[in-house]
Structure formats: C-alpha cells, structure tokens
C-alpha cells in the first residue's frame, strides 16, 4: 500500500510492503544510497539515519512505523553539528574504505547535537554500535572531539 514518508524535509510517496525496512525503501525505491546496508539486524550501524533527530538503525525499522516522522539521511544533513563533523572527517582523513562512514557521521552528529562536550566514555557509548572493520576508531574519536570544539567555539549545535 502507499506510504508517505518525510525525508530530508520532502514528502515521498511510495507503494511498498509496510514491513519493508526503511533502509530498503530509502535505498532501492528513493535512491538515497548514502545510507548503507551492513548487517540487516541493527548490529553494525552502517544504516544509521535520524528519526526525529535520534540516530536510528533503518535496517530493522518497518516503513509503516516511519510514517509521520522526520527522517534525515546523510544526504539531508545540514546542521552546524553535521557540518562540523563532516569537515573534521575531511581534515583528519577519517575514512578508509568509507563504507561505514555514513553511519558513523550520522551517529556522531546525533551525539554532538545532544552533547557538545562528550567525554571518551560518552563517545564510546554513542559510537560502539557502529562497526568499522578498517579500524578508523581513533580518528573517529579525534574527529568527534575536533567537531565538538568547533561547535562550542561557534556557540552551540543548534
């Protein structure tokens, strides 16, 4: 049946099964391919996007449950926190293969939108659901700290 989803500020209507995970609706039907498939069971974080500002694993969220929510994919990121994260990612050359990095950026942005002075423990807690097999964890952590400092200097994440 048809569902209307609000993605990156725009309404998208699509006719899919209600149990289709949001990940596949976004990737296969709307062609927002920045959100990645890694495990299909909310174990790796590659599919992370924001639902009403909260980092969410889209590979286990049925489309029917996403109706009426504000969905943000990496293509729709634009907040100061997101920009700070993405520029830190470039400056510190965080990505290696890069496949997990959309999810890392989404998780890091959601963290910094709530907390612009994260401790190492805060970062570990927010980011340990995002696997990176290339082992970019040290640079992700450094990138989050660099972005946090930039956000604080600019006067906040909002």
């Amino acid at each position, binding site marked *: 049946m048809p569902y209307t989803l609000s993605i990156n500020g725009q309404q998208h209507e699509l006719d*899919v*099964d209600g149990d*289709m*995970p949001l990940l*596949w609706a976004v*990737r*296969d*039907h709307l*062609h*927002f*391919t*920045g*959100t*990645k*498939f*890694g*495990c*299909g*069971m909310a*174990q*790796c974080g*590659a599919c992370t996007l924001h639902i009403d500002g909260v980092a969410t694993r889209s590979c286990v969220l049925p489309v029917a449950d996403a109706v009426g929510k504000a969905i943000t*994919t*990496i*293509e729709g*990121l634009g907040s100061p926190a997101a920009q700070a*994260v*993405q520029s830190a*990612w*470039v400056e510190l*050359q*965080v*990505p*290696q*293969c*890069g*496949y*997990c*990095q*959309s999810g890392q*950026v989404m998780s890091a942005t959601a963290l910094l939108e709530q907390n612009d002075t994260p401790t190492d423990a805060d*970062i*570990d*807690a927010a*980011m*340990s*659901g*995002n*696997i*990176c*097999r*290339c*082992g*970019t*964890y*040290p*640079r*992700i*952590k450094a990138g989050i700290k660099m972005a946090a400092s930039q956000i604080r200097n600019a006067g906040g994440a909002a």
Partner: protein
Amino acid sequence: MNINRFARNKQQPGVDTGRRNFLKVAATGSAGFTLGISLSAGAQAQAQATTASGAVNALEYNAFVSITPENVVRIYIKHLEMGQGVYTGLATCVAEELDADWQQIVCEHAPVDTAKYANLLMGQQGTGGSTAMANSFMQLRRAGAAAKAMLVSAAAQRWQVPIDEIRVNEGVVSHGSHRATFGELAVEASRQTPPATDALVLKTPAQFRLIGSENTLRKDTGKQDGTAIYTQDVQVPGMLTAVVAHAPRFGARVRSFDASAALARRGVRQVFEIDTGIAVVADDYWSATKGRELLQIEWDESSAETRSSDTLLQQYRNLVETEGAIAEQHGNAVDTLASANDKVELVFEFPYLAHAQMEPVNCVARISGNSAELWYGCQSATGDQAAIAQLLGTRPQDVKIHTVFAGGGFGRRANPKADYVLEAVNIARQLPDTPVKLVWSREDDMQGGFYRPAYAHKLSAALDDQGKPLAFQARIAGQSIMAGTSMAAMMVNNGIDNTSVEGLTEFSYEVPERQVELHTTDVGVPVQWWRSVGHTHTAFSKEVFINALARKAGMDPVAYRLSLLTHNPRETAVLKLAAEKAGWGSRELPAGWGRGVAVHTSFGSTVAEIAEVSVQGNNFKVERVVAAIDCGIAVNPSIIRAQVEGAIAYGLSAALQDELTLSEGVVDQSNFHNYQVLRMNAMPVVETHILASTNAPSGVGEPGTPPIAAAVANALADATGNTLTRLPLRLS
C-alpha cells in the same frame, strides 16, 4: 604473501611511455556519468562539459595521465581503492614528478587492460600482497615525468625558448614573462612525442614536494557525505536485484526445489537454479529476500563437508606431533632437538576467520550476446576478466569491468575462483540485456566460505646453557590457500604452499639449525587469504614462542630479541624505535598491567608493536599500542599511520574475539551478534612511528596486522605469568 616470490615470475618493471599518444574521450568517466555514478567535483564538471559540447575532453599522455583543457589532471589508478589509500598514494607519485597542483588532480579507476595496467610484481592486473605502492612507485613517477616533459616541450615550441630554461611549478609552466597552466598547454602537449624512458630525469628525495608530505589529503572523497559510490550503490537503468539460497554445508548441491510460493510473492520476477544454489531475482532486495524465504529446497549432501571445526583442530593437533613435508631445512635441527638437555615445546591453535568486511560481497552484471559489462569493486582484474570470459565462451576483451570503491576487502574481494563474480554472471546470463545486482546478505557473506584457514602449529627449540636457541623446529597443519587456484604454479612448490609457512620460514632470529614442516590438510571448507595471509598465524607463534624463550632465560624480551638479531639491522632498528617510543624499561605501568612486544617482517616491511594491557580477573583490556614501521620511503605518512592503526584494529579483533566455527559442517556464526568484531570501546590508543628511510617503498596495508596478537599475548604473559597459545586469547 612473499612478494619476492612474485618478483621471480614478474615481467621486467618498466614504464609505459613509448606508446603513441592520441586523443580520446575519457570513456570510463562519461559512462560513469550517464550511469549516475558519482564523480568527484572536478571530474563531474569535466563530464558535464563533455556531455554539453560533445567535444573531446581528456588528452591522454600515457596510460596513467590525461590532462583536460579545463586544467584537470586525471590519473588512472590501476589498483582497487578499498580503503588502503591507493587513489591518494599513487596519484602522489604522478603529481610529484608532473609538478602538478594537488588540487587539480582527480583520480579514476583504470579499466581492465593487463598490457597497460599489470601489477609489475604479479604480472597481471590486480591488487594484493601490499604491493600497490611497491610496484607502482617508479612506474608512476616516470609517467608523471613523461607527461611533464611533453608539457615543457609544448611550451618551448609555443614560446620559442630552450627547453631547459622552462620551469614547472604547481601546475604552471613558465619562462620569463611567459606563463601557462597545464590546461592551456594540454592540446599542444598531447601532440608531442613522448620521451624515451631513459631520457627522463626524476627528482631526488630531497626535491620531493608531495611525497612525504602531510598535506596531500585523500583523493577518494565523498565518504563523509554519502556520495562515494560502492557496488551496493551502482544503479543501472532497468536493473533487478538477485539473492541466492546457498547450501547449508559446503559442497552440497540442489537436489530439487519448489519455487511456487516465492514466485507468487510480490516483486519476485524469476527463480532458477545455478551451480551455487537457487537464484531469486526481484525488483528490489527486500522482495528478493522475502522470496528466498519462501523457497522449498532439498539438498544433496553426498559430497558435502560434514566435519566440525573441533574435530579438524583435534586432527591438526595430532598431525603436528608427526613429521610433515619439509618446507625449509638448515642443519640438522631434528637430531639436535632429540639430544637436547633443555628444550621448549609449544602447540598453537588458530580458528577459521571470516573477513567480515563492511560491504558484503556483491556484483552488478549485464550480459548481452557475447559481451559482458560489470560494475563492482574488482580486485583481481585480469583473473576475474579471464574467468568471466571462459564461463561465457567469449574473449577477455569482450568483458568490460567498471571498478568502483570497495567497502573493505582484507582479501575477500580478490577471490582466486572469482566466486561471487561468476555467480553474478551466471544469474545475469539467464536474463540477457538486463543488468542484475547480486547482493549477499551479511549471513550469506559470513557463511559463504573463503575463510582464513584454521591451523595448528608445534614449535620446538633446543637451548644452550644461556637459554639461546641452538635448534628450532616448526610444524604446521592446515589447508592450503593456493592449492587449486591459478596462483598455485607460482606459490606452491614441491607440495609446499608458501603462504602456509611464510614467516616461520626465512626465520628472522639467529638460530644455527632450523626446520619447518608442513601438513597440508584436505577439507571442503573454502579458504582464502585474509589480511597478511600466512603471517596472520606464523607471526603469532613465532613471537609468542621467542618471548617464552626470553622469559625462560630470565631475560628482557626486547634485549633477548636484539641478541638474536645482530645480523638483522632492519628489525633491530624498528624494535629499538618502538621500545624507545613506548618507554620500554622506563615507563612505569599501573598495578595489574602488563607489557608485551612483537616484531615481524612481511610484504617487504618491518613492524614492531608494543602493547600494554590491564588485567582484572579473567578480563583484560588492551590500553595502548606503540608501533614502529620501516616501509621504505613514506609516500603519505598520514595514510601509513592510518593503515597501521587499521591493521592493528583488524588483528586485534582476531586476537580478542573473532572465531568462526563449524558444527557438522554448518557454520555456527551468521552475523555480528555471534561473530563479534572489535568496536570502538575496545580500541586502544595507538601511536605509530615511521622510521626515516630512503629505500624504495614497501608494503603498508598488511604488515601492521601480524605482530599485534603476539604483542598482546606477551603482555598478558607479563601480567599473569601464563603464555597463551590459542587465538582468540582467553585468560580462563
């Protein structure tokens, strides 16, 4: 892998500059554009300009360099970018000698063309063995220098001035008041005769501006904003998605199946048998997957592997108590050991490991008549192309492969049997002219085989009265990675697969008598190289064993190693650098912590790692790792540090938790909930120090992996007194 072994069979390294230059539309760029494959900003502007005008855009100077009138320098990258940084590193070599502005460089994967793009250490186009920089360094510098010579020659003609008075700096050619960008000279320069290789004058290391610089930021961009394109993201008009139901046991085949329920499912287009299982082709991945769940399949398991990994390892432990085929022999270690008064013996065990790269394997293929077109992270270009051509009964040149970024590889993407690639082709050939994206789920990937093999080792040493080894013997039991592959002729000699024993052969420590023996086992579980190949296990047993000898002798583990490395200045220097930076012998550790060291040479590079661990009861955490690497000239120090950090993380994951097991032939693990890999909360602080060198660059992607598990085990031995010989490491 031992790259010297490749080198024996390689063609003479040379430079491809003698070819006729010609005008050429950048075919891969424009194809990528029309297919919606995202290009970097510069390339995209270029593609748009071409599409708009229909004019020629890229002027090809040689196989690696083209320059557009719009002042874009495009560099063709012959190796797969899978995170190791080849886009950046290889482009640096060209840009250095070309004296280009780093900002004007765009990179693009080269097409499959073995004559132009062979790996000079392998003799075929392909990426592996940490050879990308080692085989390209001179070739790409010459390609850059040759293109520069053509620009200079064009400028001399235009301005009527002597060639040797012309200067080139950061993308600008100048003489007196004359000044031109590369783009302004691009057309005239492309018509110059390419210089002879021996006429090229390359820079001295002191003249390097980009090589060794911290400012050459990575060129594989779009990874922070989701625009980088991987196989999973490739979209071709009319494309369908396929999944395959594989047998639960390796070697089983389809006996019968009922697809009626699957075919009735919304979105499912076709269901058919292929040689690896039952393919379900649908409009999208979800429909294909739901369709697959509705299949009724009966498997013929008469040829299936039904043994458990526990059974196999028990068999391997028995095997290493018996004499194996001799891989290396110096003196008479066996007799010396038999008559020794003082002897140490340790038995080691290693499980199967999955690569578990973040992007499960996948491949897009379209078969039309006698030709094939594919889009994927292609790591074995020559091999895959040949395998596809053979399957289709066509010529290699009729198989066109578009290489896109790979979401990790660690060995898996370079399958010697082109397993997932041929599976995609086998499906696509059933739907002529229709592009099909084969997608493996995480479960398919983890249970689909091609693992790092399980092994057992037995290491023995006879000691003198100072505790130094007089004789050393290593026995290894496990499957051969190379047997049955096209590389067997190169890598298997007299029944010895070099990748089963490398690292224990060519033993780095001074021991007068040595013998390495191998039992190659026959098991139906598909195996494959995994980041650092044989060194994944040999470095562990070698370095834990030598550490145990040091502890037995009551000597400091660094001092003991140095005393056996007097003939090996490279390992000595790297070990000393790591020890100094880690504060070995000076830095006080908190109570309950231990410190361990390991040093190993692989892929032409030497890495020493010192791990500090904290222990609480049966739990421990790796707190800090200090690494030192000698990889020759450091082309990009930031990428080298990133690769060492990543190699440590990858190896640490296996040291701490990765373990793939089989119960009666069925893989027990299926996804990241029961195949645990390293996450951020277990990642230690890593410091990497690069030894200054003027030697040619050697491997960087893999050599950081081998020492880490041993360094951690040795740290645990320091903290607890117990030597652990089984991976993953468990204190209880």
